[in-house]
């Protein structure tokens, strides 16, 4: 950090920069992590300096509305009782001092009134009843009793003025000519009226996208200020979106491109120019996006403070913080260009790259955290399993086994009936296995609710219990107890009969990276399975309807 940058920060903080000077200065700070930290600390220190050094002449009481605001704040936060604890000291001190000053001022100084400032709240104060005499030598000043504080409605932003030509009014009737009076000066000749200027109407703004879902606290941003974002609202080019503490906000473009925003994400601007294509300016936060194929020569751009991602059609995740931008590509290919040196890398499916301070700017394979296997991806072998439509299943489809020749302990053979899935996973990581299913047995369901899974050439860890080893090998595990919780589908993490899977679900560790397989065998029927979730993050049983979303076919 050089001294010139420090001096520039001081100049900025002291208000010594014009907007034209501040713009490149702020951009250079944005690019320099050290300068960002320095500016952040200077901002914070200003508050401490202000607290330590400020001078408030006693002759100038706080404006009434300030006092009311503090009082209202205290009431809102604490109800009637004053807050306790040292942390609240400054508020209490300010409240007490301001209330005393206000009362002294209003009782001793009838006029002139303090300068009127634009009120931010309408305050009605009613004096409290006179306090009963107390033996205390100094009676506390009565606190004004607040009965109502109505915030004044914020005036709407001025709408752009459009002058509409109207028909000229009929000419006024000419008065009869009268002789000029010597006492009345003759009327001045009328000035020629200025020609009416009619502003051309603004061209209609093109709707570029809609808000599909809006989480609470999401704001729509444009030049007129923030507004509450609601589902169904149209977005025009140039508007922005910011999410609050909740995720679940989704934007959908007419071409099917979707952008899902995580909590605390700011899209400064969403632009869709017919000539150049879409450009999403991401200030910070995390988004995931499925991008439909974009027109040739008009890639979709995600522009962050550190890089620009050019996308022609893919599924990706973008995470932006103050130091870096990370791009994970799930499908397709994306070019990521680092802003600081204009270097670019191509990030292919299953890979990621980071642009930012201290990060090698290369594409690497993404870690695989979640694997969801659904019936449409499985391959049936043998005659026990079949694919059925079931509206209660997660994707509307399930595998069903009505009978089985397998017995416990399980001894599988090469022709054992099974369903096989092939997928990618990392080696040397612990994945928890969750299988979603249900039994359809009406009688004695406890004997009709088990399957076994096998992860060939991998290490599978089952929980301790009477059924441990029933699946017959170190690469297998029993999933049992589908009748236990409900009549419908639910997730089981191993032997659920004694709730053993709650604390210690089945874990699999793959010996080699890349392609893996899992086989599903029926152990007790009739049973239906609609999903297998192999997760590096989900360590506890998901709710019956929880887990990753499954598309309905």
């Amino acid at each position, binding site marked *: 950090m050089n001294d010139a940058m420090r*001096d520039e920060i*001081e*100049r900025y903080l*002291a*208000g*010594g920069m014009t*907007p034209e000077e*501040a*713009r490149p200065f*702020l*951009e250079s700070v*944005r690019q320099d*992590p050290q300068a960002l*930290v320095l*500016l*952040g600390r*200077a*901002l*914070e*220190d*200003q*508050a*401490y*300096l*202000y*607290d*330590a*050094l*400020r*001078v408030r002449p006693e002759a100038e009481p706080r404006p009434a509305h300030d006092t009311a605001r503090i009082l*209202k704040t205290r009431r*809102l936060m*604490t109800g009637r009782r004053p*807050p306790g604890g040292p*942390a*609240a000291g*400054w508020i209490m001190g300010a409240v007490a001092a301001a209330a005393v000053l206000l009362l002294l001022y209003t009782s001793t100084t009838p006029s002139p009134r303090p300068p009127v400032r634009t009120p*931010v*709240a309408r305050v009605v104060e009613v004096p409290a009843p006179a306090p009963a005499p107390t033996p205390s030598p100094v009676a506390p000043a009565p606190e004004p009793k607040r009965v109502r504080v109505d915030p004044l409605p*914020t005036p709407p932003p*001025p709408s752009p003025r459009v002058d509409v030509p109207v028909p000229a009014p009929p000419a006024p009737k000419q008065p009869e000519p009268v002789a000029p009076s010597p006492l009345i000066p003759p009327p001045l000749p009328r000035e020629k009226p200025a020609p009416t200027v009619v502003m051309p109407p603004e061209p209609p703004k093109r709707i570029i996208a809609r808000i599909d879902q809006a989480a609470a*606290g999401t*704001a729509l*941003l444009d*030049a*007129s*200020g*923030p507004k509450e974002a609601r589902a169904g609202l149209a977005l025009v080019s140039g508007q922005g979106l*910011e999410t*609050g*503490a909740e995720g679940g906000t989704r934007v959908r473009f007419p071409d099917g491109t979707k952008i899902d925003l995580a*909590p*605390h994400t*700011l899209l*400064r601007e969403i632009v869709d120019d017919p000539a150049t294509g879409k450009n999403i300016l991401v*200030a*910070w936060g995390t988004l995931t996006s499925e991008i439909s194929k974009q027109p040739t020569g008009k890639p979709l751009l995600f522009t962050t*403070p550190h890089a620009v991602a050019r996308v022609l059609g893919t599924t990706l995740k973008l995470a932006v*913080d*103050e130091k870096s931008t990370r791009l994970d590509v799930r499908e397709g290919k994306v070019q990521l260009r680092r802003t600081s040196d204009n270097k670019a890398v191509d990030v292919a499916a299953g890979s990621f790259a980071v642009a930012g301070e201290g990060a090698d700017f290369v594409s690497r394979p993404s870690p695989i955290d979640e694997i969801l296997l659904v019936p449409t991806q499985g391959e049936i072998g043998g005659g026990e399993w079949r694919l059925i439509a079931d509206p209660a299943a997660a994707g509307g489809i399930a595998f069903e086994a009505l009978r089985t020749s397998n017995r416990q302990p399980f001894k599988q053979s090469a022709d054992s009936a099974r369903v096989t899935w092939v997928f990618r996973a990392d080696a040397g990581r612990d994945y928890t296995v969750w299988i979603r299913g249900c039994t359809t047995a009406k009688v004695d369901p406890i004997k009709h609710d088990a399957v076994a899974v096998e992860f060939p050439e991998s290490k599978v860890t089952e929980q301790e219990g009477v059924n441990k080893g029933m699946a017959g090998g170190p690469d297998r595990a029993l999933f049992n107890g589908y009748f236990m919780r409900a009549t419908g589908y639910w997730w089981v993490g191993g032997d659920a009969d004694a709730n053993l899977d709650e604390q210690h679900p089945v874990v699999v560790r793959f010996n080699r990276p890349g392609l893996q397989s899992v086989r599903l065998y029926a152990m007790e029927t009739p049973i239906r399975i609609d999903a297998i979730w192999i997760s590096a993050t989900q360590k506890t049983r998901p709710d019956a309807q929880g887990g990753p979303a499954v598309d309905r076919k």
Partner: protein
Amino acid sequence: MGMDTDRARRELMRLALEHRAQLWGFLMGLTKDPQKAEDLFQNTYLILCEKWDQYRPGTNFMAWARQIARYEFLASVDPDRRPFLTAETEVLELALHAAEREEAPSVRRDALRRCLDQLPDARGRRVLELRYGQGLPGERVAREVDLSMNALYTLLSRVRRALQDCVERRLRTEEAGA
């Protein structure tokens, strides 16, 4: 009112007090005027209190509070200036986020006060008093202490650096002594 409601309000109040300096500093950075910053801070604080039930404990309080402060600030300025100011708020928020530290804000505040008391540079102290104590704009401060604007920025930069070094030294000493 249930226990949970009480607890949530207390938690919000605690967070608001704990992060007061960052919020106020953010608004001061935007307005460059202590009185305006104070007014906007009070409005922001009031809105936080009114919307306390929208806050979810465990989520990023400062992000939420800064969002409200930013809207309050943008609502207070000329609409024509908003596009540039939106970019400015963004950089200041990034800066505050980048400067977040592990120690409680009160620890740094106390250290800064002690360092301020020991500041050997009388002219530097005078400049801070004029700027923050009396809320004078930069050019008035420069006039009062008979400095050119550039000399004022250099002096402020030097004083702030001295204070920061002193604060860091104190925090390290306290940490080692703890």
